[in-house]
């Protein structure tokens, strides 16, 4: 099929969650939509259980992968390459790391997060955490003299949060998620009266319950102010028990199993039964409108501008024949409106490659993530590690507060899968029991039975501020096999964030001490994410939360999109995705991005009415 010069109402670049939401909303209103997806498809997508090319093939790939990293189930594709956590190295001082994987990294610190280039995007391997941002997160500059203010407030976004939560099918209880039970007004969230999530809160793990009991009444002091430590269930884009007549979209397989989380303990990198939300569900709904076409293996590489109107007149893309060769057809397509939904890094790359939307010189800048520090140890008793969803609760009480004038806020995630993240347990740790500790037979079995169920870890998702020098750029030297640019990244973790890491470590130490946890945390200087603060060493990991590369604002001189998420420079160009977010704060960004995208879809519809 060819789309040469065919004109659509809307051309969307990217079939991840933002592109899928946009397509569904527009398709439902009768708009003719084309989605260009750089990666491959899953053939029949969500409902196809075919073992060869469908979703099931991802499972086989996951089971036999040696390194079960987030992208393990999703094949590498040299025509739409993707970053891998196994590629991350500490950038050397004198030259970029250009020979490891997709990113070209100049440092001084490594950017440690990845994403997936495939139909469904990174929601194929997200954890599903659906936290709202705090009201104060939208006003960091005004309240704390740090970062930037958003051009919109929490109140502006609240109705869109509700729409996004209903669509994703979030499992949570609103009376818990207001954080009114936490004795820290900074973190408390106003919810609309009588609002509740579409599905009931997913049961908290035995570990969560153990922690909640053990930490009852605990406080820490920051700047002579007491802050509480409270364990709270986390809202999750994963099927729980539906409220009322709500039914999650397209649960597959046996209705007694797939319609709710069955505890496969594998949300990242892949839920075998699709009980976790992924953009494949929304894409299926978009396709069912009859107005949305999805073209996979189609890498957009240039946006052409009509210099009279400043409209994006054409999208140029390379449609490759297969993942096995670089052969492609060069194609163009027109849209009355063009929406870039290709992920924060890829959006920035495409804008820079096209030299559009960048009168502010802010495209690619302000790249943020949640540098994620881990601590781990052995509980004094078995807490049933390696069971359930990846995380069912967290400690959100330090997400906000006056201390943000001086240091980063952070959210504590409670991990249910033992030491799988920090140590690769059990697969990577059992060989040592055999080879080094000389255990075999009943002694080996006993050691694993007694120790592994006690394994425990925290994750600290630390806030990072927008910094124009943390950026994605392009460079003619670095291209992939289709001739498209590879992202060139400059990145550093500043003292503001490092101070947050140090604070987080202190909180962790206090919790370990209170609970009698035997610490095993090791921050090795050889770790790529090793950083120092006031003489002490810490290690951060990537959270996969890529934010800020085309941020929105009130001023075209200092931002890339306006509050409608439309490019300041091009009247028919909308940008969606986490790239629009001016600050990252402490919530996983997908829910906020989804809410913003529902809003953006409304703006696009209104704009189309004017054509």
């Amino acid at each position: 099929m060819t789309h040469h010069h065919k004109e659509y109402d809307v051309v969307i670049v990217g079939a991840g969650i933002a592109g899928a939401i946009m397509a569904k909303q527009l398709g439902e209103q009768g708009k003719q939509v084309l989605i260009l997806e750089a990666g491959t498809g899953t053939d029949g997508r969500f409902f196809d259980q075919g073992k060869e090319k469908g979703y099931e093939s991802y499972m086989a790939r996951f089971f036999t992968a040696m390194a079960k990293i987030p992208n393990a189930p999703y094949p590498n594709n040299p025509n739409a390459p993707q970053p891998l956590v196994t590629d991350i190295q500490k950038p050397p001082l004198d030259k970029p790391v250009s020979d490891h994987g997709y990113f070209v990294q100049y440092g001084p610190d490594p950017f440690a997060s990845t994403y997936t280039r495939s139909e469904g995007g990174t929601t194929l391997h997200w954890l599903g955490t659906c936290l709202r941002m705090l009201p104060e997160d939208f006003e960091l500059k005004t309240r704390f003299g740090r970062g930037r203010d958003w051009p919109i407030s929490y109140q502006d976004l609240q109705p869109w949060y509700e729409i996004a939560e209903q669509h994703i099918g979030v499992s949570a209880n609103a009376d818990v998620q207001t954080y009114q039970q936490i004795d820290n007004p900074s973190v408390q969230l106003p919810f609309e009266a009588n609002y509740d999530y579409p599905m009931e809160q997913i049961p908290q793990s035995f570990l969560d319950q153990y922690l909640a009991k053990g930490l009852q009444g605990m406080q820490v002091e920051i700047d002579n102010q007491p802050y509480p430590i409270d364990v709270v269930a986390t809202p999750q884009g994963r099927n729980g028990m539906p409220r009322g007549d709500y039914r999650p979209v397209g649960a597959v397989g046996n209705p007694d199993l797939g319609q709710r989380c069955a505890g496969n303990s594998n949300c990242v990198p892949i839920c075998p039964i699709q009980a976790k939300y992924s953009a494949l569900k929304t894409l299926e709904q978009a396709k069912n409108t009859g107005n949305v076409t999805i073209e996979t293996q189609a890498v957009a590489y240039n946006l052409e501008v009509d210099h009279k109107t400043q409209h994006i007149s054409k999208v140029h893309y390379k449609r490759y024949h297969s993942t096995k060769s670089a052969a492609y057809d060069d194609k163009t397509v027109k849209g009355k409106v063009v929406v870039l939904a290709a992920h924060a890094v890829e959006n920035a790359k495409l804008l820079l490659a096209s030299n559009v939307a960048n009168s502010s010189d802010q495209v690619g800048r302000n790249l943020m993530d949640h540098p994620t520090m881990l601590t781990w140890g052995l509980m004094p008793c078995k807490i049933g590690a390696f069971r359930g969803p990846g995380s069912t609760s967290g400690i959100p009480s330090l997400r906000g507060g006056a201390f943000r004038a001086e240091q980063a806020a952070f959210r504590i995630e409670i991990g249910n899968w033992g030491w799988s993240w920090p140590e690769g347990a059990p697969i990577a740790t059992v060989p040592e029991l055999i080879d080094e500790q000389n255990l075999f037979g009943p002694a080996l079995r006993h050691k694993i039975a007694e120790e592994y169920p006690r394994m425990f870890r925290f994750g600290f998702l630390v806030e990072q501020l927008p910094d124009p020098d943390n950026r994605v750029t392009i460079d003619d030297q670095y291209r992939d096999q289709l001739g498209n640019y590879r992202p060139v990244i400059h990145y550093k973790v500043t003292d503001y964030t490092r101070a947050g890491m140090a604070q987080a470590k202190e909180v962790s130490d206090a919790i370990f001490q209170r609970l009698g946890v035997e610490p095993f945390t090791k921050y090795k200087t050889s770790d790529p994410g090793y950083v120092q603060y006031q003489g002490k060493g810490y290690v951060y990991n990537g959270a996969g939360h890529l934010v800020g590369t085309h941020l929105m604002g009130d001023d075209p001189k200092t931002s890339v999109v306006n509050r409608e998420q439309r490019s300041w420079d091009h009247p028919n160009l909308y940008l969606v995705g986490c790239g629009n977010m001016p600050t990252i704060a402490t919530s996983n960004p997908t829910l906020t991005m989804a809410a913003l995208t529902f809003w953006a879809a409304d703006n696009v519809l209104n704009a189309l009415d004017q054509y």
Partner: protein
Amino acid sequence: MYRLTDFYRLSATLTGYDEVELQGTGVGPTYCKTLSQWVRQDVIQELYHRAEEIGSLECESNQAQFYERIWNCAKLGPVARNIIKMWYLSIWYQLPADWNALYGVDDFSADKQPVEDYVISSNAYIQGLVWNALGSHPMGAKQPGYGTWAFPGQSAKPLNLD
């Protein structure tokens, strides 16, 4: 010709799971073949014979013999450890280069080791003994059901080490 009976008997000693439990996984024949694929028959036979001569490890003197004649033996120790890892983790790890130089070459093939460590099969991953040993299920398979994670969790059965 690989000998499945011998393989199960030795595997029981090495893994701490009895032969019935091992057979129940259904992947014993695959592991036995994998072993034959990467280790010379005479080395495997020697391992079976020595294990049989030593007998049950319940008695202390037999344990000492096991360490001396198998676990610490340059030829047989790495093979025994690989068998345990295969059962627990479903992975065939390359044998060390120095082992390979001495024992990995036979009359027909110059190099008898795979180019990298690998997971033996999807099913092998699912049957890995480590998951049962730690009181859970393989991540991504054998799902325990909605909300089960809220309960204290099964503990692997207590073992008597005396």
